[in-house]
């Protein structure tokens, strides 16, 4: 009897669920109706609802366009093999399409070509930007010559250098006090921002850290991550390394792994790993795990964008920023440049099925205005991201968010996406965040002037590829980066040191075709880019 009751209850529950399911779907749809446009955006749960964000409300008010936002988390979005096939949406914000996707969707008319709308009437701001910046226009072009996406432009001169090296000065002081030979030649007065050490000095100090603080992580970073990776360490051997192992050196697209300096760096890292100066977590952790682990001051030294998020407030002053490590053999300092670009190509796309493309584009064109760009990038004035009063006509960021950290505040309140923030905007309309200014200062005073590569190396810009070139890249590049990283990590953690022949045979030879093809295609595209931007 009891059993049958339970069964009945269960069945009832299931039936109710089944009945509510279609209702829920209806409800969702109802809410959707009556809006002029529906835009899909990629957003994590922690970010506030765009529909209630003041910046979007004022945008809607000013343009007279009513936009309803629906969401995908980045995980959902990545696993959707055909995002433009989603029914009932007019545009995708944070689309993040690859060149190949843009081309494919554009060719099929699934996303709209924007060329005919880039006029004084529909998109005055965007038109002005493209006229003033031929490099951006060039970057946005698809192989068929059309523009299919709205870009994100945030030029601060920070992204090419995604790493800074920090070190715990209190621990060095301990070494000096104990007359440890590792700290010989270093005075306490030297222990301030801009500390300059050779790689062997630095190694000695890390060994000292390890001896004094058994459970510490002498050198921490996140392997393969876009920021805070090991690239600068490898660069110090005289090769312009970055997370993609691919750069432009003296006008030539180059794979850093082909340089013997790169091999030597891996060999050295193997040794450091054996001495426990680098720990295994460097190769397995995510950004968040790295940040969580560093809070209690366990890192002797680390590579990261800045130090504020890595260590907790009361320990921040213990860490100082260093100059790039000095190569013992040459006495020079080298830093590679990342390929993280300040112009992101496909931040927003309009679907071909959108009924009033001009209307929606008029709305998005407003995003390029400095005041809106700033609010999209940092949070709205109403939410407290900026002071309410402009100073000299400039929006001034508000640094005080109470108990919230600046990062947390921004994560919750800023939608990011389509913005246009350039040198001109920083000078006239928006004051740079103090954190960004500080970082820029550090780069200008401690990194850029010492970088021997500053004239010979540049980041790979947004290049335009033909369909054939895109095919070649997708065939080879998908696995190439993985193969390189895999070889590298395996050698670092192996019990025996890597040999030259292993490097030549198992890395260079077996990936030769892939590297040659990727280099060839990129070189051709780069030369076209140079020609196009020079003539314009």
């Amino acid at each position, binding site marked *: 009897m009891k059993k049958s009751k339970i069964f009945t209850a269960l069945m009832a529950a299931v039936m109710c669920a089944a009945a509510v399911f279609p209702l829920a779907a209806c409800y969702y749809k109802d809410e959707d109706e009556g809006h002029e446009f529906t835009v899909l955006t990629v957003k994590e749960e922690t970010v506030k609802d765009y529909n209630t964000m003041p910046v979007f409300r004022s945008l809607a008010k000013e343009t007279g366009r009513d936009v309803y936002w629906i969401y995908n988390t980045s995980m959902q979005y*990545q*696993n959707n*093999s*055909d995002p*433009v*096939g989603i029914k009932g949406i007019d545009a995708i914000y944070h689309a*993040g*399409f*690859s*060149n*190949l*996707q843009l*081309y*494919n*969707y554009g*060719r*099929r008319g*699934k996303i709209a070509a924007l060329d005919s709308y880039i006029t004084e009437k529909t998109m005055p701001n965007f038109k002005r930007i493209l006229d003033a910046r031929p490099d951006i226009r060039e970057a946005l072009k698809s192989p068929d010559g059309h523009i299919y996406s709205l870009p994100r432009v945030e030029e601060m001169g920070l992204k090419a250098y995604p790493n800074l090296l920090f070190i715990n000065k209190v621990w060095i002081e301990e070494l000096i006090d104990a007359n440890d030979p590792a700290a010989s030649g270093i005075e306490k007065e030297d222990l301030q921002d801009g500390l300059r050490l050779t790689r062997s000095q630095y190694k000695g100090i890390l060994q000292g850290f390890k001896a004094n603080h058994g459970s510490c992580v002498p050198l921490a970073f996140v*392997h*393969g991550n876009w920021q805070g990776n090991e690239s600068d360490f490898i660069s110090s051997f005289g090769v312009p390394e970055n997370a993609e192992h691919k750069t432009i050196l003296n006008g030539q697209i180059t794979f850093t792994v082909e340089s013997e300096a790169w091999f030597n760096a891996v060999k050295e890292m193997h040794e450091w*790993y*054996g001495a*426990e100066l680098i*720990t*295994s*977590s460097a*190769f*397995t*952790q995510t950004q968040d795990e790295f940040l969580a*682990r560093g809070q209690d001051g366990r890192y002797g030294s680390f590579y990261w964008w800045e130090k504020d998020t890595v260590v907790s407030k009361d320990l921040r002053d213990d860490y100082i920023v260093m100059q790039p490590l000095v190569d013992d053999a040459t006495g020079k300092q080298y830093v590679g440049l990342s390929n993280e670009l300040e112009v992101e190509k496909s931040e927003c796309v309009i679907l071909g099925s959108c009924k009033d493309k001009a209307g929606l584009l008029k709305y998005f064109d407003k995003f390029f205005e400095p005041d809106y760009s700033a609010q999209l990038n940092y949070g709205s004035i109403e939410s407290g991201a900026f002071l309410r009063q402009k100073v000299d006509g400039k929006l001034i960021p508000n640094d005080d968010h109470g108990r919230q950290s600046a990062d947390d505040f921004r994560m919750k309140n800023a939608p990011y996406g389509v913005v246009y923030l350039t040198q001109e905007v920083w000078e006239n309309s928006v004051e740079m965040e103090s954190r960004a200014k500080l970082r820029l200062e550090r780069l200008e005073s401690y990194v850029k002037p010492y970088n021997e590569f500053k004239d010979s190396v540049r980041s790979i810009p947004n290049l335009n590829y033909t369909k054939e070139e895109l*095919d070649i*890249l*997708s*065939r080879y*590049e*998908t*696995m190439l980066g*993985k*193969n390189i*990283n*895999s070889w*590298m*990590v*395996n050698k670092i*953690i192996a019990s025996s040191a890597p040999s030259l022949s292993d490097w030549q045979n198992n890395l260079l030879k*077996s*990936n030769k*075709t892939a590297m040659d093809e990727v280099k060839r295609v990129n070189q051709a595209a780069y030369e076209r880019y140079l020609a196009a931007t020079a003539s314009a």
Partner: protein
Amino acid sequence: MQNHSNTAVLTAELPADAAENEKLIEQAYEALDGTEENKPENRNKPSKWDRWKANFKRRGWILLFILPALIYVIIFCYAPMYGILIAFQDYGQGDPIIGADTVWVGFDNFSIFFSDPNFWSYFTNTFLLCFFGFVVGFPLPIIVALLLNSLRAKKVKKGLQILYYAPHFISLVVMVGMLKMIFGSDGLLDKWAGGNGLELFLKPEAFRPLFIFSGNWQDFGWSAIIYLAALSGVDPALHEAAKVDGASRFRRIFSVDLPAIAPTIVMLMILSIGNLMSCGYEKVILMQTDGNRVTSEIISTFVYNFGLGADGKPGLGTAAGLFNSVINVALLIIANFTSKKLANQSMW
């Protein structure tokens, strides 16, 4: 009942002469039943089709029971199969599978896949991962089921059974998270060993054991259920008889239980051999690091990278997946054929 025994008697007394035979049968049927369809002239040429029709009329409604399964298989297994056409195309995201401007490239995608310098590494990695998984994972639930079944205390048996199959319900992501906490950086083992001691997620040689043993730990209890079900069908009288003959408990497992579930074992074995080259990509990708990629890059992760990646080539991914499936079908047929020859058991 009466009629039936009459027939039996009649047939038993049939004379050798064939003509006589016919006559007698005719008489016998007339005696049995005078209806039209049972008359000898009709009965003599009942085509297969007629019999099928008659059968269908009487019992056809039973077929309705397989209808849901059939619809399921058609919608979810057969209908999507047209997607394999992508393997022969230069397909881009958003393309229709067959359209006016579809670019057919023949076997190009396959030759790209086979000429990949790492092709053999993907192939052997897939095979070894699945093969060892099979070697460990196939007998384990059988042994567990046999042992559970011979437990005398029913409550203990039930308790253990629940204990064994509960891990099955842990989601993969949580499962891999647990593994990382135990075997990963700063995990239990790593901390215990000190320094860069036992970070198993970076070690290529540790990937397969980790993958296989965690998988089996999670699923052996669950897989044992089907054998337990088969064991519950064993006639207790057989056990009684064996006991009377003085068979020990161990002996009874081998002589009563095991033969009883042998058909189930064979059937499941054929099915698992058919899956010998397919281990899903989800767990592998969750467990993959740059350190263990040497052993953890398998065909299905290749399919994932090319099929779903933004810069990928869906055609190439599909071709690799199709190649994998073809091998699986071949293995299935071979396994089935072998079992038919050796054990006289097969799926078809």
